[in-house]
Structure formats: C-alpha cells, structure tokens
C-alpha cells in the first residue's frame, strides 16, 4: 500500500496505531495511585513527543543518511516558530498560513546556510552550522528585538492587526475553528484519558512526515545519500557531484525543523529565542543518537525519551519521594531518599546523562538496537536456525551507527 513494500506498510500501520493510541498508552497508572507521577498522557507532553519526533525525523534525513552532523538545526526550529507567531499577529489565529509559510521560510533559510556550510564536511561543517545557529540566536535575543521581542519572546497582543479575525473567531490557535487547546477527558474507572485536538493535529502531521521520510529512505535519492555517507571521495571520483544531493537533504531536514518549530507555536502561541540556542541544536543530536541514527523509528523514540526525562523526572521532588518511601523505617527512608535525590528534580540532567552514556556504550545503535536485540532473543527461542533475513529485494542492511 502507499507505494510501500508489505513490510514497510506493516511498519507504517504500527506507527499510525501507536501514534493514535498515545493518549491511552502513556497513561498506564490510575490517577489516584502514587505511580501516577509517571503518567505522561497530558496534552503538552504528547504534543512535544509528536513535534520533536518530526524534528528528529527531519534531522535524521541529514545526519542518519548523509552522515553530515549539523549542530545548528535549532535555528530552523526558531525561524518556524517566529513565522507562525507573526502570522498570528498579522492575519489571525488560524495555524494553516503560518505553518505553510514556516516551511517555506525555513527552506530558504536552510538553502542559504546549507549553501555556505556544505562547502566543508566533517567537523568544519558542524562548526559552521553551529556558528550560524548561534548567530541567529544572538540576533533574535537582542539585536532583532523589534522583530523577535528579544528575551521575553514573541507574543500576540490585543492591539495587533489580525486582519482575518472575525467576530467569533477563537482567541487561541485553531484550524478552521478546531481549537488546538480543546480536549475531551474520559474517565474510565480511575484512569483519566485526555484526547486533545492539538495532539491529534500534530500526530497526523507527524505520521505524514514519517511516511515521507520512509519514502526518502527507500528511494534512489536515499540510496545516493547513503552512498555519500559511506564514501564521498569515491563518489566524487566516479564523476558524481554530490553537493546538490547533500544540499537537498539539508534543505529537506531544515523544512522538517521549520515545520516542527511552527507546530510548537501552533500549540502554544509564543516564540522564544532559546529555541535557537545551541543546547536546543545539541538536543536533537542527542535524540537521534539515543534512539538510533539512520534508523526510521530511532529518532522518534529518542525524542520521546528525552522529553519524558525532562518533564517527568524534573518534577519529582523530595516531598514526592517521602510519599513513596513512607512505608520504610525513618532512618532507611532518609537514606534511600538521599541516594535518589541527586537524580531527580534539579538533577534530571544527571539521570539523562547517565542513560545516554549507557546507551552509547552498550547499545551503539541506540534504543532501536536494544529493541532489535530483544526481538532477536525471542525469535531465536521460537525457531532455532533458519535464514535470519528474508528479503527478495536485497535491500542493504541498515547503516551501522555513525561513530562506529
């Protein structure tokens, strides 16, 4: 179906199912239990999963396929957000014009930065993109304050023109009247599920983005990009000019980032300069490597993993810990809490760092490799021996991790 092989169709359908069922899957604990702290099924975090999933999928088209490590993708994220908020200010709260323009503007921006940066490869390319992104961040933070509203972030004010706003238009982001913030809450015997319009909007776009990336991976163009990663010099010797291909990959991934940035502003009508900071660029690199660079699903998993840590672990404070371990005798309770304390609350970075190290050391192919190993373990038990791979089309093996 959809021009995909049976295996890929099955894969896509699984992804579609997982995405649509997210509000239920992420809410495994009843509201009243003490483990409800770990529930992640609230709109903001689900939206972040989908949006950063798109961001990481796009980044993976560049990094996973061509091996060019960009350290400046956050710049496109920021450009997308600013575009959408400006469209709110000028036209009105419908997200569509903003999103379309966000993709176009980030593509132009990526074309410019890519055209210059791609004259170099390897570490020099990374440094160039980092410099451009940091430049954009500093411009947005201070010099361009009239356009970006600086540190405070760009917001919509009641005296903005908003020429397309009617009398009864919603006063927050919407798609032809479907307000992004609205959700339906369903109470099923203690479990509370929130079905949010904004999330499903992001989810549908994320599925489309995933499908396009799947097609790119399986296309001759994708093959060319992989060839660049494998040995660019040899490609050049055979008379192929590889730069148009890398530039195309760069622009495509820039468009993905712009779309993600636009979606961030569609869910929450504010664009802050920090979105462009180098830490944000670094985050998407982490997401991709953590999940598995060059794999289709990896970056999405990585994005979810990091956003989960950031939002769930940072909110566990000592009071919550005392609640959990109240059953222990006093001395032991304090000891256990003292042990856990550095890893939660303000220490969530530490937890993330340790998990990242563990993944990089033991699962160089990221979380996806972890999943594959588990699957192989089960399969081996089920049918010993037999051909390990049946693929009549003889597609190439998935690329190994780039640092290998």
């Amino acid at each position: 179906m959809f021009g995909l092989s049976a295996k890929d169709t099955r894969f896509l359908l699984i992804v579609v199912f997982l995405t649509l069922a997210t509000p239920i899957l992420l809410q495994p604990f009843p509201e009243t239990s003490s483990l409800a702290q770990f529930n992640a099924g609230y709109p903001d975090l689900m939206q972040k999963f989908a949006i950063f999933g798109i961001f990481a999928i796009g980044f993976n088209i560049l990094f996973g396929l061509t091996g060019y490590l960009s350290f400046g993708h956050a710049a496109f994220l920021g450009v997308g957000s600013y575009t959408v908020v400006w469209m709110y200010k000028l036209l009105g709260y419908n997200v569509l014009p903003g999103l379309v323009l966000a993709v176009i503007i980030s593509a132009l921006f990526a074309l410019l930065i890519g055209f210059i940066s791609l004259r170099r490869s390897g570490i020099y390319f990374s440094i160039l993109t980092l410099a451009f992104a940091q430049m954009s961040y500093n411009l947005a933070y201070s010099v361009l304050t009239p356009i970006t509203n600086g540190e405070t972030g760009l917001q919509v004010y009641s005296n903005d023109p908003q020429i397309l706003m009617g009398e009864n238009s919603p006063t927050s982001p919407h798609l032809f009247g479907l307000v992004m913030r609205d959700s339906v809450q369903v109470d099923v015997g203690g479990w509370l599920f929130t079905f949010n319009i904004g999330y499903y909007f992001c989810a549908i776009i994320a599925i489309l983005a995933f499908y396009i990336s799947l097609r790119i991976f399986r296309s001759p163009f994708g093959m060319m990009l992989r060839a660049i990663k494998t040995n660019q010099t040899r490609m050049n010797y055979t008379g192929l000019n590889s730069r148009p291909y890398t530039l195309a990959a760069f622009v495509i991934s820039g468009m993905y980032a712009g779309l993600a940035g636009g979606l961030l502003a569609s869910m929450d009508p504010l664009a802050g300069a920090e979105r462009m900071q180098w830490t944000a660029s670094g985050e998407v690199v982490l997401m991709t490597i953590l999940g598995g660079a060059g794999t289709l699903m990896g970056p999405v998993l990585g994005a979810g993993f990091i956003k989960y840590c950031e939002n769930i672990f940072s909110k566990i404070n000592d009071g919550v810990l005392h609640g959990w371990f109240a059953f222990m005798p006093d001395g032991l309770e304090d000891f256990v809490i003292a042990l856990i304390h550095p890893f939660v609350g303000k220490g969530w970075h530490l937890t993330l760092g340790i998990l990242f190290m563990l993944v990089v050391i033991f699962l160089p192919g990221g979380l996806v490799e972890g999943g594959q190993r588990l699957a192989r373990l089960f399969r081996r038990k089920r049918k010993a021996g037999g051909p390990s791979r049946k693929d009549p089309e003889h597609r190439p093996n998935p690329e190994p991790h780039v640092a290998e």
Partner: protein
Amino acid sequence: MTNSNLTRRGVLKTGAVTGAGLALPTIFTSRASAFTNEPTGSTVKFGFNVPQTGPYAEEGLDELRAQELAVEHLNGMGDGGMLQTFSSKALDGTGILGKKVEFVTGDTQTKSDAARASAKSMIEKDGVVMINGGSSSGVAVAVQGLCQEAGIIFMAGLTHSNDTTGKDRKANGFRHFFNAYMSGAALAPVLEKAYGTERRAYHLTADYTWGYTQQESIQASTEALGWQTVNNVLTPVGAGDFSSYITPVLQSGADVLILNHYGGDMVNSLTQAVQFGLRDKQVNGKNFEIVVPLYSELMAEGAGANIKGVYGSMNWNWQLQDPGTKAFVKSFGEKYGRPPSNSAHTCYVQTLLYADAVARAGSFNPCAVVEALEDFDFDGMGNGPTTYRGADHQCFKDVLVMKGAENPTTQFDVLEIVEVTPRAQVEYAPDHPMFGGAEASLGECNDGA
C-alpha cells in the same frame, strides 16, 4: 510493491475494536467543572515553578525553600511565620477553605519555553490552581501569558522589568516584587545626596528586555536630577569578560558607571571595573563612582569586597526590623539555618496573599480571586503598608536603597540598608509611557470555563 491481505476475520475484528473505541466517550461522561482545575477533593494544589538549573538556580532554590515554608504555615505546621503579623486574618492555619495545601515543583531552567512546558504540565497533569515563582522577567511574562490563556492565577516571583505589569500585564497575573521604574525613583534622591547634581553617567546595559527597561528608568530619573548621560553601551548576556566595555569608560569623561546587569554578569562587570581601578580615579574633579541599580544577596556575596560603598536597590531585606520581617526571618532561619533572600521573601508573601484572597473571596475561582486581590490594602508582610493596585496588578510599597557594607561581619550582611524610600515617592500612573502607555490593558479575567 503492494501487498495487503484482508481476511474476513481480520475485518470483523478491526471493526469491533474501532466501534468499541468510538463508543467509549459516550459511555463514560467527561469531567465537568466550573473553572479550570476546580479543587473537588480535600486538597488543593499549588505549582511552584522556579529555576532549579541554569544561572539563577541558587535563587530558585531559595524561592522553593520559602514556598515550602509558606505551605507549612498555611497548613498550620511550624510557627505560622508572617500569618501572625499579616493584617488580614482570613487564614487560620487549617489550609484554605478547609482544604489542605499541597504543591508540585518544576524547573523553569530560566528559559521561556521550558518554563511554559513545566507550567503546562502543572496545569494539565497536576491540576494546580495557582503558579508562583520564577527568577527572570522573560520567564515571568511568558508564564503569565500562559496562565491567562489557561485560566489560572499567576503570582509572579522575582521579575523586575517594567513590562511584567506594564505592556505585558494580564488580568490573571500579579506582581509583588518592585520594578525598574521604582528602582530609579528610589535611588535618585540618595544618589543626589551622595554624589550631587553635576554628574556624567555611563551605562553598561545587559542586552535584553529587562536591561532596556531598567536603563530607561534609571536614565530618566538621573537626568531629572540634572545628570548627563554620556553613553549607553549594550553588552551581551553572559559575556564573562567585560574588560573591552570598561576600558572606554575612562576616556569618555564620565564620572559615574551604572551597571544594568544582574546575576553573574553583574558580579563579573563590577569585579572587573574595580580591578581596573575605576573607583580610585578622579574625573572632573570628583571621585569616580559605580552604581548597581538592582541588588540581590547572592550577587552581593559573589562580588565580595568589591561591593563596598556601591549603591543599589532591593525589594526587601532580612535586616529590616518590623515584626513581619522578624517573624519570617525567624521561622526561615530555624528551618534552613540562613536568612531568606529577597526573592524568597517575595515568593513566600505571594503564596500567602493568594491563599488569603481565596479565603476572603470564599472561592478558588480565579475571577473571584482577582477581585479580592485588586486594590487590596495590607500590612505586616515586611514592606509596611502595601496596596495591590487594581489597574495593573502591581504592588506599591516602600523600596529599600542599599549600600555594600564597609565592615561586614558574616556573609549575610554584606549589604546594609541606607534608606527606606517611602511608597509615595515611587508611585506612577498606570498609563505611564514606560509601562505601555494608554494602550496597555489587563484584558478580561479568564477562569477557563
């Protein structure tokens, strides 16, 4: 290549599952409430959103300490702190309206995005009715906007920019902390007394919104004294090395350097200015002076001996001698073994003020709370008689002018109070041009219903 296998059994199964899924929402009714996060059980939840990582983490942690203390006092634990001295007696130490107060915490990372994400999770997941805290104006403005949209109350923490209750004011947001205009108005008379009216000022300003509003305010109030402004140079935030900005000051003919910096930037710029010998210089026949308009205890600690004799302003200081301050310093000191900072004080007071407003209004409905807080006069919170002005949700109270102590005895008294500038002197009209002019409006209060 297309390949799909549809079997009868498969289709039936999928159909049944889809049908059940679609029917679910109609079987179980969705939750209905009168306003966002209406507390229905025996508890009510507050959200404390402070920077726990990043440049202002120290301040954030001190805010968190104070907020925990406030919750203890509301629930009747500890010695009650400022509840004993607060002029309103609506709170009795049994929670709020019979509900026990609980809280959740989050990390703003001093980034607007992260702060909004954290605040959203508090609203959507934990069901908080009020968010308090923060240590940056950008974050405060961003979170205030979010709370307005979501329909809960935002009690701002440390935010000094004029914009928070100026052009970005919101009906659901309240600020107890003072602002840049008040700093300027309070400092001016002291500077006049100390340095005279014939001065030439050189500004180094942090290159972002707060820096701009502070520089604008200080320039206006010093020029009203007759001072001249020689130059205003914008410096990047987190520059670390300010030497290239300080060298030109000596050649400019200025005799006062005004540092519109905060946190680590201020520590670095002040330290370097002193190391360059600026304060030992004579310019235009006068001693060269340095002014830091906004002080905090943590900055003063960081700058060490360099701060001696340098003037600045503060919202509150633990060395004040009124009963409210004494009660708060005592209970904070007993619990944490150190005096509270002024950001801790403002968060503590904000939490109590919110609780009191709910108790007086008899409802957690944000619009009722807004009504109870607007034009509310109170006393006994350490700042003397105070008013929450209804027109812009800014607190009006006395402002402290501070000076680096010449002979500090501990790390906690490196600043000394020079003057308590009376409230009348720092007041302004709600439509003041520095606060968004006549265009700025609070908008309608939103309860999320």
